[in-house]
């Protein structure tokens, strides 16, 4: 799994590629935690290159969202496709997050 971070329009964008499972999820967790630590409140996870996500990966999204909530921040998710979208929807997580088809839409959306 690769995570690359950039900033655009005041939001930290995490582009995640590869597989996010029990082994690789902690890495994503550390990246998110580091961003929150450094003061970022508005994160966007761009998942168009993510091939697979396990429940361990879902947990990181949930944990990050839980951390950001009291800080009045949020994590938006965009670019989900195929299997990843299926996992989000099956687990019902799709209702927990702000989800956008593309990065542009995620950035453009009003809070």
């Amino acid at each position, binding site marked *: 799994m690769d995570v690359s971070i950039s900033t655009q329009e005041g939001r930290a964008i995490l582009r995640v590629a590869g597989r996010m499972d029990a082994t690789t999820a902690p890495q994503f967790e550390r990246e998110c935690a580091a961003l929150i630590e450094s003061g970022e409140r508005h994160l966007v996870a761009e998942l168009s290159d993510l091939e697979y996500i396990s*429940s361990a990966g879902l947990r990181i999204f*949930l944990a990050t969202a839980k951390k950001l909530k009291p800080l009045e921040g949020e994590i938006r998710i965009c670019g989900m496709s195929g299997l990843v979208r299926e996992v989000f929807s*099956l*687990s*019902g*997580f799709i*209702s927990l997050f702000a989800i956008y088809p593309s990065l542009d839409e995620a950035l453009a959306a009003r809070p």
Partner: protein
Amino acid sequence: MTLHELARFLRSLRGALNRRTLSFRLIVLMLSTTGMIFIVAFAYNYVATSAIMLEDATINARHLAQSVIGRIAAHSDTIQKLTKSIAAQLGARQDLPWLYTTQRQLVENNNDIFGTCAAFEPFSADPGRRHFAPYHFKRDGSVSLKVLGGTGYDYFAMPWYAHPKETGQPGWTGPYYDEGGGNVLMATYSVPFYRTVNGAQRFAGVVTVDISIDWLSDYLNGIRLFESGYAFLIMRDGTFITHPDRRLVSRENMFTRIAQSGDPSLARIIKRMDVEPFGAAFGRDFHTGKRSLHYIHSLAATGWIIVIVVPEHELYGDLRALARTIVLIIIVGMLALFVAVLFVARSITRPVHSLSRVAGEIARGNLDIDVPHADLANEIGMLAESFRSMKLSLREYIANLRETTAAKERIESELAVGRTIQMSFIPAPPRPADRREEYEIAAAIEMAREVGGDLYDIVPLDEDRLFLLVGDVSGKGVPAALLMAVTRTLFRAFATSYRRPAALLERVNEELARENDSAMFVTAFCGVYNCATGELAYSNAGHNPPLFMGADGDIRPLAIPGGIALGADDGAAFGDAIIAMRPGERILVYTDGVTEALNERGEFFGEPGLIRALARAHSASAEETVARTIAAVREHAGGAPQSDDITLLCLRALRITTSADA
């Protein structure tokens, strides 16, 4: 050297001479090579030197012979000339007074001349006498005359007379001792003389001169070659003229002696003297019995033969002494070489031995042992250096290994704890005694190495109702196992209190979502099966939809009402659904460990794979369905490790007693 030291030395020597050791091979190789070189050089030297010495000895003998010949020739020349002169005059003169005067003067004036005789042919000097041979000779210091010949002394047949007469040549005869004289050794030179009778040369007699050859005997007997080499003279017929053993002289014949106890090759050389005036041969000396070099040379003027004898042991005596010394030097040198090679071999093998001892120690795990320092300039030093670095890397490796092993053990023990927790919260598989004729139920859980927090439960609620649960906790390991235990406990606690599965899920979610800082969650499918009506009421919390399998082989995912995983969102609501099952129909509830099982190429088993596997057994029992599914997953995975728990629960309706509508 004490006895102890000696014993130690012998032990090390025995060690060095052990056939397999490097030392032994080194010693054998070095000693055999140098020994071979020594032997070849020594043998060549010995053979070449002995040939040179033999040649030198032969040359010496020839020089000696030639000097003897020169002496004898010089001596006999005068005698021969005087004799020939008398013979020549006697051919022309008849008068006896002249003859007598000449003879007397000859004897008187020459010390070496013992006597002289003129022997006439029968009736040639005096027609009245058959024998006539006036002989002047020394006796008691004066010269006497005696006329030889008569019936008692018929000289015509004697060699000194007959030989010149027959051959017409002068010649030597003898030697012999004078009769009644002072034991003087003599030889006689005879010259024939002729007179003209009726205009023709006629043999008229022989003039002889007897000479003492004592001087010759003394001279030859005084000759010494090497220690005991000697020389002697013989006549062509083998008669001894001189010999250190005087008893042989004039009495014995050399050929007879040779035939008795000598070397016949000498006789052959002497017989060939006309062709080859000298020769040499090794052979047994008839006189001393020792193997000797014989040098033989003919004295042409006299027809005598000089024989020079040198014992072989004296000829080669110096060489043999030299050879003994050289052999001694070689032996001492080889011993020194042996010691030197032993020293070198041990200086090589000692560090190797100690290295191999150290290697043995290292192999037994003693990594604190010191690797001996060797001279760094040579291969042994390099070997020692390699050993040292090997020891260090081994030590480092083992330290690392210990660390990682400890870490691994920690992980393993964590895994074991997680497993133990999970195992203790999984119900025993339904037993045959619990079977009911209305339905079949089967369940199995295949735990991954690191537990994935799968759970299932089957709880009879009353006579007809059966509670079913399959869940999957997010994450792995001990935290997942603990949450799994909590979840199952909550379900068990509340299962009987809620008639609607959705309400049960809401209740459990409420408990799990409260203060869920770790953001862990559980996907779950739960249902209540009424075996009387065949109705399965169910609800789903973010779990993958179970498969419905109709009796006709139709397989499809069960329609599920929406619902989020338990613990993720407090206050989440869940929906209820119901399906009326007919006999032979099955429901298979499973966790994502089934569909997300990977093969070695990283491909998921997937829902289509699962459906394909199940399609082959559309009338299977619940137990068979579970077993077949597990087998299919394993077949798909091949050698790939199982990364997540696999849980299966299959319900098969068999008989429905009450119509749902009724």
